[in-house]
């Protein structure tokens, strides 16, 4: 079975894109701050586009600052139960995310693990998904848990991280450094929001004391902060695979990646990930479909008993 399919990772992104990703990983590692690590994917998107950001993008960034300014400060985290239970982070409503995390969440409910829920910024909560869940917290609350001082400090830290990032890119490539400069506003805002969310998460995790953190991605800044903060506090964390793997999947932040099958594991090992952080579990999105077909089709006859 480990007839390792050699998915030829480099070709999934073009060679120049793979080179760009490797450079970003190397530079952000050199910078050595969690903020820089947390904004790798937006940084990749900005630099890969090779364009000066249009006014629309800049306005969108300012809109995020405005949202931050109007969010109340210093709200207390309620210490309502459940404590020391798994925290499921629902980041996006897209079917690929939802179909892979919901079956796990529902299974956790069936096992009476009393999971609590954290919702990402773009998540539109559907009450039917979370019946009986006593603790549902939203992204905006992470911001509200922070103080004015923490927000100001975040801005100052973002500025200095940006300067370090820029000087490291200047050392790596003048062309990329130019791209970083074109996206200065967006990068500083990403870095600042990352720090603020991290501070909110720290307070939230301390109050909730989750037994572990489970989600479908740790790519983008919010989810990256979710997992980096868990790591800092020693909370075990797991990412459930929600799509086919690409070179952007390594390095990942979570303690373990729960994968659909062996070929995906082989691929990520090929990217450099340590095998002990990769667990092959299956694709939750297909559980109900497999169950349905296995009941009535010959598919079941060919499956090992351990899978039934």
């Amino acid at each position, binding site marked *: 079975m480990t007839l390792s399919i050699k998915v030829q990772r480099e070709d999934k992104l073009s060679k120049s894109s793979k080179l760009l990703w490797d450079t970003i990983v190397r530079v952000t590692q050199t910078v050595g701050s969690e903020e820089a690590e947390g904004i790798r994917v937006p940084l990749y998107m900005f630099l*890969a586009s090779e364009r000066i950001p249009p006014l629309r993008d800049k306005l969108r960034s300012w809109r995020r600052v405005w949202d931050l300014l109007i969010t109340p400060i210093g709200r207390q985290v309620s210490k309502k139960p459940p404590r020391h239970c798994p925290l499921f982070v629902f980041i996006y409503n897209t079917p690929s995310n939802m179909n892979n995390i919901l079956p796990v969440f529902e299974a956790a409910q069936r096992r009476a693990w009393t999971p609590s829920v954290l919702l990402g910024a773009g998540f539109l909560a559907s009450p039917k998904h979370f019946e009986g869940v006593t603790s549902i917290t939203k992204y905006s609350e992470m911001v509200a848990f922070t103080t004015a001082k923490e927000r100001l400090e975040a801005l100052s830290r973002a500025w200095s991280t940006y300067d370090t990032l820029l000087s490291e890119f200047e050392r790596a490539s003048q062309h990329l450094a130019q791209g970083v400069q074109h996206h200065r506003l967006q990068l500083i805002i990403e870095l600042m929001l990352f720090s603020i969310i991290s501070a909110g998460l720290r307070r939230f995790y301390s109050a909730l004391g989750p037994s572990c953190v489970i989600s479908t991605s740790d790519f983008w800044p919010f989810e990256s902060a979710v997992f980096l903060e868990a790591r800092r506090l020693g909370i075990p964390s797991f990412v459930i695979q929600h799509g086919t793997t690409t070179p952007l999947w390594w390095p990942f932040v979570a303690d373990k990646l729960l994968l659909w099958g*062996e070929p995906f594991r082989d691929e990520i090992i090929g990217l450099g990930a340590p095998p002990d952080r990769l667990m092959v*579990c299956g694709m939750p999105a*297909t559980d109900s*479909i497999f169950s349905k077909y296995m009941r009535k089709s010959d598919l079941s006859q060919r499956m090992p008993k351990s899978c039934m």
Partner: protein
Amino acid sequence: MYVILSNTQDRFEFPDLYLNYKYLVKSLIIALPSIQWNIKLHPIEDDSFYDDILDSNYKNFKILPKSTSLGEALIQSDVACTLNSTAGLEAMVFQKPVVVFDIDPMIAESAWWPKLGGGVYVKSAEKMTEFVCKTAAVINFVSELLKKQNDFLSMCFANQGRAAEAMLDVIKEAL
């Protein structure tokens, strides 16, 4: 009825690839008028990519309403086609023959499944016509294809039907 599992949201990153894809879709509609071609949009995609095809008012081309789920789209189809959408994998679980539009070397690498029996590659309208003819004329063509797809699924997807429980077992053991 054939469903195309669309994912044109990446078209700005890979403009040439999607130009070829659009050309192929148009060619398929024209070359195979007896096939109803339905597009199942990706949830984060709108139908603007297909504007000019829609303007041509082909009778055998339709974009499914956004409210149509992947399952609904697949159940009503005989064959599922895609560039490299993960939905192609789910189509195999739904026991549908899967065609991957192999119009660029990048596709064969990102949608690698046909190399292991998970569907078949088709790179042109001519090849698609051959495929359609075989589904009708060659005995066991579809059942053989489905058998290969099922073998692929068994090989690539662990704990079929109980992946969520398997994940909780792993988590429990790690805590």
